[in-house]
């Protein structure tokens, strides 16, 4: 799927991804010439179709985690299936509020989600994970539902 700005006859480039609610995934595209933006809205079924292929609209912003598709796709996974990641020296500190929020993530995928947030913070020199950092990571990385 491509988007063409008819005014400029230029292909629009992927700009950002958003999750406005009710399972909708919005992929925003922008004309490099005139700056006009348009949003492609995918319903939950369409979003699921892309997700089941293990790909991300707009390109991957984080590398594949091991068993990413299984962890995020299986609804009946065991809470004890994966060992929680061990803290390493120089690890990012998690605030109480961030830990509470992480606790809302199903435990089958919690380890993977924690690693994604932690890697995000490490790459940016962030020493403490807070809900605000998690929000930024979600926006920057396009982590729908995490």
């Amino acid at each position: 799927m491509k988007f063409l700005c008819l005014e400029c006859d230029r292909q629009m480039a992927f700009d950002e991804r958003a999750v406005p609610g009710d399972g909708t995934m919005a992929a925003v595209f922008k004309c490099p010439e005139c700056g006009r933006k348009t949003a492609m809205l995918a319903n939950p079924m369409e979003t699921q179709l892309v997700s089941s292929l293990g790909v991300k609209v707009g390109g991957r912003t984080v590398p594949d985690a091991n068993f990413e598709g299984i962890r995020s796709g299986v609804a009946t996974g065991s809470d004890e299936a994966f060992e929680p990641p061990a803290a390493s020296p120089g690890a990012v500190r998690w605030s109480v509020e961030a830990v509470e929020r992480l606790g809302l993530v199903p435990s089958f995928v919690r380890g993977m989600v924690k690693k994604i947030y932690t890697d995000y913070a490490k790459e940016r020199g962030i020493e403490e994970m807070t809900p605000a950092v998690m929000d930024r990571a979600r926006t920057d990385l396009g982590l729908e539902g995490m």
Partner: protein
Amino acid sequence: MNSGIRTYHEVDELPSDLPDQMAAQDERVSARLASVARVVAVMSGKGGVGKSLVSALLATAMARRGRRVGLIDADLNGPSVPRLLGIEPGALVEGPDGLDPPSSPAGVRVMSMGLLLEPERALAWREPADAGFVWRGAQERGALREFLADVAWGELDVLLVDLPPGTQRLAELHALVPRLAGILTITIPSAASRDSVTRSLDMAVTRGVRLLGVIENMSGVVCDACGTRVALHAGDAGEALAESFDVPLLARLPFDPELGAAADGGRLEPWVAGAGPAAEALGRVAERL
């Protein structure tokens, strides 16, 4: 009607990234399997012929002979390999090179959906209600791909892939592993099994997958007292399939009541090491592989 709008293929300033992402997934499988000498599928078009049991037995027999063996339980909806090999579900550990696979007492490295699901729960995917049929195939293919690519299999002489009944999973496996060494076919003697397996083998041949041979399971029962083999099923599917597809009949495994108890208890290794006619026949197959 010409609207003046360029076509999809004419608009190519920014090529789609999705094919690249899918190609990267396949490359990840290839990279992982670079340390695996041979990938062999175990299949049958028929359910209930003992594919998983024969896979587990063969893997154990090969491991006892010093081979480095892995076994993927590709029956995502009816996983049984962990129980057969005596592997208790436990937390998978994330190693530096991927998820470390648990090993059976004989040293067979295993991955199975049975290690990941809640006890006694069926495999269910997160999906809008009653619409999962649209993409379930893609999700299951994705799970098989992750079993191949994300597990730290290490150096292996053989990676067996125990396929579920039917033909679809073989097509998925072959697409992911074009250098598949071949398939071992399991049948029981009955005509019904011969019909189902014939269709599966026809599909495999059409895809250009090499047929390594046929193993006939539940091939009668041997009397302990006199050694006479008594038929359990009418038919000679093993021989007929081997002849039709010009492949060797690798073994005819007689039914062994002791094997049932060993399988349920996850104690296959003592049985494999035993001197029964089925264990000996299986050992010969392990030698040939």
